[in-house]
């Protein structure tokens, strides 16, 4: 299942961006258009004995939510920003209609502070600013800037979609691996054929606090999660 190719929507996107601008939260000084994207990720380990990873996934963005989903539709994640400015993070297991929640009390104690700009744009403003502007270009008919530099010891090459405030590609290299992220499709959320699972439907999922896993030794879902994923490395 693919998001409809982007060319058809260039005009729509422009309109949608403007129409959605009033809905989008601008508390961070950013107006982010609501979008549906499909990305491809390719991880190439320096150590050739390790396997390369290819993954395609969906990315949906609204003013106050970011949702992702694996190409097979089985797993995803959702971040929702509330009116109090807090961010609720859940992992989604669609086949089991289960959401695993990472609670604020534990997130706070984990010293995790979510940067909403980074979540919804994949790069923080600070990271973007620290990369050097190289040249303008056009990707998928959209204004783009090539930016390069180093962040946390990794060399980065980013094609930045200026109006969408999303990367068309990110190539990260360090001594261990190369991670390549590439945009395959992009469309306004309103018109995309591939919709995210609705927040209302996720609300009807079984909700588990991740902290409770240790006490759910006989729960079929938790058992399956540990057993199935545990086999991946063997």
């Amino acid at each position, binding site marked *: 299942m693919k998001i409809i190719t982007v060319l058809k929507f260039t005009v729509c996107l422009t309109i949608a961006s403007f129409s959605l601008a009033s809905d989008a939260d601008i508390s961070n000084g950013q107006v982010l258009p609501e979008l549906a994207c499909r990305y491809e990720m390719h991880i190439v380990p320096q150590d050739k004995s390790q396997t390369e990873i290819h993954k395609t996934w969906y990315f949906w963005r609204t003013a106050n939510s970011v949702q992702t989903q694996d190409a097979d539709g089985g797993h995803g994640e959702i971040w929702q920003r509330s009116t109090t400015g807090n961010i609720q993070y859940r992992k989604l297991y669609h086949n089991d209609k289960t959401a695993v929640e990472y609670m604020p009390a534990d997130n706070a104690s984990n*010293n995790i502070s979510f940067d909403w700009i980074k979540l919804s744009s994949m790069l923080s403003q600070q990271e973007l600013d620290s990369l050097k502007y190289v040249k303008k270009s056009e990707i998928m008919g959209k204004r783009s800037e090539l930016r390069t530099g180093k962040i946390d010891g990794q060399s980065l090459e980013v094609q930045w979609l200026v109006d969408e405030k999303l990367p068309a590609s990110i190539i990260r290299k360090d001594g261990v691996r190369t991670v390549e992220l590439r945009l395959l499709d992009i469309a306004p959320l309103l018109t995309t054929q591939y919709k995210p699972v609705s927040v209302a439907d996720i609300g009807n999922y079984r*909700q588990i606090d991740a902290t409770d896993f240790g006490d759910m030794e006989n729960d079929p879902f938790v058992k399956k999660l*540990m057993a199935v994923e545990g086999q991946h490395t063997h």
Partner: protein
Amino acid sequence: MLFVKNLSVVAVTTLLIVSIAQADEPSPEDWFKAGRKTVVDAMHLHPNVRHAKNVILFVGDGMGVSTITASRIFDGQQKGGHGEENSLSFEKFPYLALSKTYSVNQQTPDSAPTMTAMVTGVKSNDGFLSVNHTILRSEPSAGVIDANKLATILEQAKQNGMSAGVVSTARITHATPAACYAHTANRDWEADSDRPAGATVPDIAAQLVDYNISGGIEVALGGGRARFLPNTVTDPEYGSAGKRKDGRDLTAEWVSKHSKANYVWNKAQFDAIDPNKTDHLLGLFEPSHVHYEADRVAHDKAGEPSLTEMTTKAIDILKKNSNGYFLMVEGGRIDHAHHAGNAFRALSDTQQLAAAVEAAVKKINLEDTLVIVTADHSHVFTIGGYPVRGNPILGLAQGVGEASPTLDLLGLPYTTLNYANGPGYTGASNQQVAGSKTFTTPVTPGWASGSEGHTPTSYSAAIGRPTLSKETVEHHDYLQESIVPMGAETHAAEDVAIFANGPQAHLFHGIVEQNVIYHVMAEALGFTKHHDHHDHHNRK
């Protein structure tokens, strides 16, 4: 005798702490005198054979003996001593027994049947809350649950005109507090939305608020707000949706159905409660479990009372009843910190439980109030190596006379505290790279969640052991090494301790089945005759 009835350690502790404060080690004579004084004190100990007016049951969830020992040292080192000589408040109680924690169907139990045993006098199955083991796990029928429910000490207290309260740092609908007031064959059915379609047994939160004996439960303080709010209402602190599908706002119902009732969800509201003007207090300070004590003040947005503050407020409300009260207080997150493989938070939450016990004992009269401190089960948490006296409990083991940490046979240092299993395994997990693990999964480079602790779902085999530094292992987020890789560290099956003081505390002696705790409380409260009738009625 392996463990000592009539144990008095006050003398030893006082003597040894004074000596250390003076930077002098106790002399051989000091040790001898302290030992003798303990025996003399024991000779002067007279069992309190009165009936108890009140009972306070403290449960450290997952607070095994190794956790108590390590916490005692942790606490003592913070006070400036070597640590080993220190005693947590409840360790000074005169009576002690060991509790066999297995459940009807598990060698190593969970918190549901263990608390069921403690508050009903009957052992049951994993996941069961105050129902007998003869029914099916997740029995959906309210009728079947009703026919197989076990009367709890809290219910009997209410039936006898006493007041009752539950306090926890976990969700107030979590297994340990829930077993006091709810009956269900699935501990996870905390809100109506947690139950499968067609289940008629009420969810745990509803059972708490709908509790009807003698005007309802007086005090319920802890976490778990989301399960009391409908999904159409957002959380006052975080803005996330409630978890009830039935539209009930149980916080509002608590206030409307009880007399002189209040509901609070932050510390300012909690502090404003006048116990003399409030007869029923519901306090829910987080949507799920409240913060670890180590993080509470620094990280909580709206402010939360400590376990000590909740305990003392609860006592102030409950003690107004001249018929007495039953109060259960749980240090619920000792267990969670251990499951996460993080000793620091387990020890600091145990320290806070000890502080709550100390504050409670100051408020009550031990002549008329039985105080019990125990655990539901242990954890696979060990204190090992041959560290020198006073070695930092979270640190690398360093032996007597050694200038650097002791090395293992790979030539690598190791910590005193370790786990037999859990997320501290040092192979690469799907969340953290090979080597030492931390409570915080660092934000991964590149766009990825990085928004959780370390609850891995897969591991690669570790190659050797990591080279540990003092800075790494004494960091509060360090996860002690585990042998067996697991997403969550597990409970352990060895016995746990029961500490008791007050009326009939001397009935705790020897190694007992965990359900004996109920029977001592019932005897102390004078429920045993009354209970024989219920026994026949409820336990066919």
